[in-house]
């Protein structure tokens, strides 16, 4: 486990402070986590050997700070808060990377920051929408825990998946608090994207000028892998990398292959 440090960065004119997890050394990667919340996985751990990872908690999801979500009313508040955070961290031209919900944020940030984004990495991002491959936030909010696991992963028996989704013993207070954090985190991210995460990225995505990598698991049951092509067609300098035997969680399900793809892209 890496030695994670945290930095509190004031944003939005001091109305909000973002808690940023930091680890590693090397060029900066600003990483936006998924709707499931911040989780320091092996993918980030391995990448942090050669890059400095800056991974903010989405407001409201940092431990002990649930009320911070009240400062965000719209998606634009979040984009500007993250833009402020990047400046506050002193990152002039970071690599922006995001997964799922965080992928949408990463794309919005890159569309906003244009030349101030070195490269962009989108892992199964939400944010575009088409009727023939429709999905809604309710699709994952209305699921039971076993159903969520079924939809998220290609293979639930993968050890990293088991570790990530390990729920404390049934009936214990630990489990109640684990459930509380899980539900609250999804609720916080859902606030900005309910009920359908089509919040105008399609009107801004053409602004992305950074070289971009779009990664998708071939067996993603939550968001159709067909969206990879839509992102590729919308971003001028982009390429798609698909992962076989992989669902919506490449960092857990295909950790090593994902890392190789990202390293190759970044060193290119």
């Amino acid at each position: 486990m890496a030695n994670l440090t945290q930095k509190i960065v004031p944003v939005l004119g001091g109305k909000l402070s973002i808690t940023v997890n930091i680890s590693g050394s090397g060029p900066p990667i600003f990483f936006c986590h998924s709707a499931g919340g911040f989780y320091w996985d092996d993918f980030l751990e391995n990448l942090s050997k050669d890059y400095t990872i800056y991974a903010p908690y989405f407001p409201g999801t940092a431990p002990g700070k649930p009320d911070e979500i009240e400062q965000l009313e719209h998606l634009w508040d979040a984009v500007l808060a993250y833009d402020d955070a990047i400046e506050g961290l002193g990152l002039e031209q970071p690599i922006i990377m995001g997964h799922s919900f965080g992928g949408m944020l990463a794309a919005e940030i890159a569309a906003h920051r244009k030349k101030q984004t070195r490269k962009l990495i989108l892992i199964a991002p939400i944010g575009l929408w088409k009727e023939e491959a429709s999905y809604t936030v309710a699709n994952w909010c209305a699921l039971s825990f076993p159903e969520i696991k079924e939809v998220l992963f290609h293979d639930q028996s993968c050890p990293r998946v088991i570790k990530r989704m390990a729920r404390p013993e049934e009936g214990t207070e630990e489990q109640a608090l684990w459930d509380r954090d899980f539900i609250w985190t999804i609720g916080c991210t859902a606030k900005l994207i309910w009920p359908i995460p089509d919040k105008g990225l399609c009107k801004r995505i053409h602004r992305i000028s950074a070289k971009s990598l779009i990664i998708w698991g071939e067996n993603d049951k939550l968001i159709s892998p067909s969206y990879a092509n839509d992102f590729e067609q919308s971003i001028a300098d982009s390429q798609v990398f698909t992962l076989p035997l992989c669902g919506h969680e490449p960092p857990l399900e295909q950790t090593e292959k994902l890392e190789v793809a990202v390293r190759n892209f970044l060193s290119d």
Partner: protein
Amino acid sequence: MKIACFHLMPYRDLQSDFDKKYNSAWFTLPFEDVADRAMVSKYYNWTLDELIHAAHSGFDGVCTNEHHQNAYGFMVNPNMMGSVLARATRGTDTAIIQMGETAVFLNPPIRVAEEYAMLDSISEGRLVAGFPVGLGGDYAYSYGMAPMEQRGRYREAHDLILKAWKSDKPFAWNGKYYQLPMVNIWPKPSQEPHPPIWVPGNASPSTWDFVIEHDYSYCYLTYFGAKGAKHMVDGYWDKVEEAGKDKNPYRMTYLIPVGVSETDEQAEKEYGPHIEYFYHKLLHMPEQLLLPPGHMTHSSLTHVLTKRPFPAYDEFNDMGFKEFNERDYLVTGSAATVTAKLKEIIKDLNVGHLLLLPQFGSMSHDKAMENISRISEGVLPHLKGIWDDEGWEDKWWPKGQVGVSQTKEEAA
């Protein structure tokens, strides 16, 4: 003591294996798969007939409510029902209790201010204005709004509606959720400055604080029985006392299904299948559909998950009529038995307004009409005077009465 007849307007004839085929009676249940359009017409008319029958046979009020996309109760616009009821009970002092049109489901929410004002006018001042926060699933899944914004919208909609009723001049509203350039509603309610306000809830302390702060009446709408309610209701009364307010029982309203039989022994046969249909079929719903992520505040979510003050809905499936009856989830038996049990509940919970649910689950129209008659004849006369000797004023009952509706000229 005031006693009103509540109705959910359920789908009464779901197939017996419906809960095996579908994971919920709410939100995702396809109408065309399980419902018959002709039967639905009958249900709405039966519901109105049952409520009108209750009004004419001794109930003090009739009560409607709002839910969406479900078989449990699909009175999607309670004000349409309330309007029919107001006209059908003209010339009586029956309260029209709307529990209620849900402001956060509408945009702009002054639609509620307008429609309640219309209803109060049609009923000549007999309206009780219910202000529900609204079911989280209705708000998020049926009406597509972010769960985390529901309570903020509710507070703002409430403030806007109250100002719309009270203001004597047009005003601009620049809120967090709503912006209106010239609020100037027509009509204003018949009751001045506005109808009495009741707030339904499910034992959320934040709702208690809101009710007490504004001096409204709290309606505890629970399906977990009067025995389980005691602890919750005591929490409300403690807060009332802490706020330095009196223990006027009319600050409290309580809902319960009731079935009256000729004898206690006949109750199970007459009402058992209907209450089991209610709990097993109509409340068939996964918890995450009831409470979308973000609907509850962080502190309420922590409380509910760590303390589990209510059983999970799927536990109902392990229970039958006997358990429901023993836990006072409903009250059944002879008129004498029902009267005694309701007296006990009224005193125990310190309740001034009682909402009885005489039609529940799969109960037929004829059975519901008979039950209403039995309650009216055998129960209500013995309950109505319960609080009379204590001298409490019911500040939360509408002012309109037979013969007092008059124009300004008549008043002069």
